[in-house]
């Protein structure tokens, strides 16, 4: 095997694959990246056996095809420290030779036959989405997952196939984020798994792999796993086992009050109120009264804060207490100028934030104990 590579392209491909390479694992072989060079090009493969990725690397001239295992973290260090734009890779009896300018590294190479295979995206029924739509939907849901839940399958994002769209939903049972993404179905008639939950780690990889904004993403959902092709990457993930809660049941269909807010100033007020909270008193009181939303927080031994924001409100005052982190995390994924509608029922019912592009975010308030 003998390759001539563009250092920056090889380095960025390694960075993406490194997203799945486990830092700690009893199986040392998984700390490697599998490099496959054929006459058509060069592919890097990494896996932790739950999530796997194949990345095609551009800018490579294959002089002699072949394959090898490369120790991921060491190769990344090498590529980061090298200064010349071109890097040569060669597999020899002694291992892999990496040469660039005046530097030469010889690294031990593992046996590629022992590396677990990662499926490639062959011809199969799949959905097609626009890359930037999917990326936005992932950004708006992924933060709400709960990797520690044992009761439900919350350690990932539900990707629910529907009519002309995939609905992404994530929750940690205290808040819920739901965002649809338009899609077309290619040869899919009946989804094999109506409620596939894609693990958070794979979702992060997908989001990072969507390079060009309008490039299409292909997504093939199976009973127990999922394959996604976007740009140069193909991502494989085993679906999260277990049941996702019936999320649509907990989105209130009707509400008593409706408040229009703009993300920027609201986010700023929430961040300010967060300063004076502690582990013991996480709650911030959101008081909606005549023309003003007042956020008040206080924590023993810390102090208190009071932030006001003008709103349109002509009902009786209503105070509802939220964990401000849950509100802030939602606002962070939206542009500052975006408009959101807040739907409220009372101080102990779910509150819903909605945007006009179909995004819904449900937060449960805090209640006085007993």
């Amino acid at each position, binding site marked *: 095997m003998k390759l001539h590579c563009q250092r920056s392209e090889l380095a960025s491909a390694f960075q993406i694959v490194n997203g799945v390479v486990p830092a700690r694992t009893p199986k040392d072989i998984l700390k490697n990246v599998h490099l496959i060079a054929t006459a058509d090009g060069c592919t890097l493969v990494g896996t932790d056996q739950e999530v796997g990725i194949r990345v095609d690397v551009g800018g490579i001239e294959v002089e002699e095809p072949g394959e090898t295992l490369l120790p991921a973290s060491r190769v990344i260090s090498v590529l980061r420290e090298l200064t010349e734009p071109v890097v040569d890779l060669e597999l020899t009896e002694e291992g892999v030779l990496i040469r660039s300018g005046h530097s030469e590294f010889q690294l031990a190479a593992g046996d590629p036959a022992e590396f677990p295979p990662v499926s490639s995206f062959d011809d199969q029924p799949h959905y097609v989405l626009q890359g930037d739509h999917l990326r936005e939907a992932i950004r708006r849901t992924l933060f709400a997952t709960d990797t520690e839940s044992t009761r439900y399958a919350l350690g990932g994002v539900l990707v629910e196939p529907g009519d002309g769209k995939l609905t992404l939903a994530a929750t940690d049972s205290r*808040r819920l984020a739901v965002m649809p993404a338009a899609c077309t179905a290619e040869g899919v008639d009946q989804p094999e798994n109506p409620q596939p939950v894609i693990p958070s780690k794979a979702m992060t990889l997908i989001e990072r792999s969507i390079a060009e904004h309008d490039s299409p993403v292909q997504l093939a959902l199976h009973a127990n796993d999922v394959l996604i092709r976007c740009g140069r990457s193909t991502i494989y993930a085993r679906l999260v086992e277990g049941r996702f809660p019936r999320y649509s049941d907990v989105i209130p269909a009707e509400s008593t009050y409706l408040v229009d807010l703009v993300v920027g100033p609201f986010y700023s007020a929430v961040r300010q109120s967060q300063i004076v909270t502690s582990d013991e008193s996480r709650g911030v009181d959101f008081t909606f009264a005549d023309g003003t939303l007042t956020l008040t927080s206080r924590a023993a031994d810390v102090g208190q804060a009071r932030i006001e924001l003008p709103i349109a409100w002509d009902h009786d005052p209503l105070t509802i207490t939220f964990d401000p982190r849950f509100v802030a995390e939602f606002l962070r994924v939206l542009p500052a100028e975006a408009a959101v509608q807040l739907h409220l029922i009372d101080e102990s019912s779910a509150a819903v934030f909605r945007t006009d592009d179909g995004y819904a975010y449900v937060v*449960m308030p805090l*209640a006085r104990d007993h």
Partner: protein
Amino acid sequence: MILHVDMDAFYASVEERDRPELVGRPVIVGGTPEGRGVVAAANYVVRKFGVHSAMPTGKALRLCPEAIVLRPRMEHYAAVSRQIRDVFERYTSLVEPLSLDEAFLDVTGSRQLFGTAVEIAHQIRADILRETRLTASVGVAPNKFLAKIASDFDKPDGLTIVDPEGIQQFLDPLPVSRLWGVGKVACRLLQQLGVETIAQLRQLPVELLQDRFGRHGEHLLQLANGIDGRPVIPDREAKSISHETTFSVDIDDPALLRAWLLELTEQVARRLRRHGLRARTVMLKVRYWDFRTITRSHTLPAATSSTGTLWEAASGMFSQLEAKLHPVRLLGMGTSGLEQEGQVQLSLFDEPDRRKQHNLDSTSDEIRNRFGTSALRRGSQLEHGAEHRPQPRPDDS
């Protein structure tokens, strides 16, 4: 210096005080023999017949047929207990109640204000008598273990002082059964070694004790030498709340052990709620017949005081042990990571469940506060006769 204050035959004495016609007659406070109840308290008259607390009422009545059996009035006893607690708190803020009728007090910091520990003990006994017309026995000693033995030394209405210089003189002649953690089984094991008194125990090499009792062996030796470093921990500052029970006969029936674990869990949960606390971590402790002791802990996603949630965690840990269950000598359930109740984050998915649990807990707390702990019991606890009476133990942690 530490004081251990122990009210004399508390429930029975309260009844005698309130109904003078009972004075001098045998009085039992407890469940009825028809309801298979047990003696919660016995006055000193009936004790002469061999009646003692935790004995089935039926048996007590066979020993003393003319005994008067009274239903416990827990709410009333709790009110009297609060009066007594108020007396303690005049002298020190370091009060660790063990139950309604006994408590540890650390008076080390109070001596400048109120005189020596012995003087404080006199004053406390006098205050209690004047304000409640009840007598208390008090032990004064350099640590909890000695104070506890001392209060029992001259009951009722006694005051026993253990000087730092006189510790060994005080302990040596006592039988080993006076040591915390030495019950029937340990007593028998020690007898086999020819040990009857604390003086004899003190002569044994630590290796031998470790061999017979595991880590507990070293602890026994420390107690025998009058060493006990545990501080008095006021309940509201408690870092953990736990209950454990040592069985009179080792148990290997998982169903019976589960019934006991549930009983312990209920008591811990009740105590949490009474103090307005919630716990984040649940602990399980099992000591096997051979004194091998294992502990397991589980951290919950959110702090709770709900019996149901705590039981889920405790029973889950117990299930994992069940496969390797040998006869069990001691079972304990504890909670730590305590925080004050405040705001609770409501959940999207299990709200009705949580509310139901909460209503169930507060209703059962109310029933028990009014009618006594045994007024409401679970089927499994009744079936297996699992009823725990909190007793101080050497290693409550």
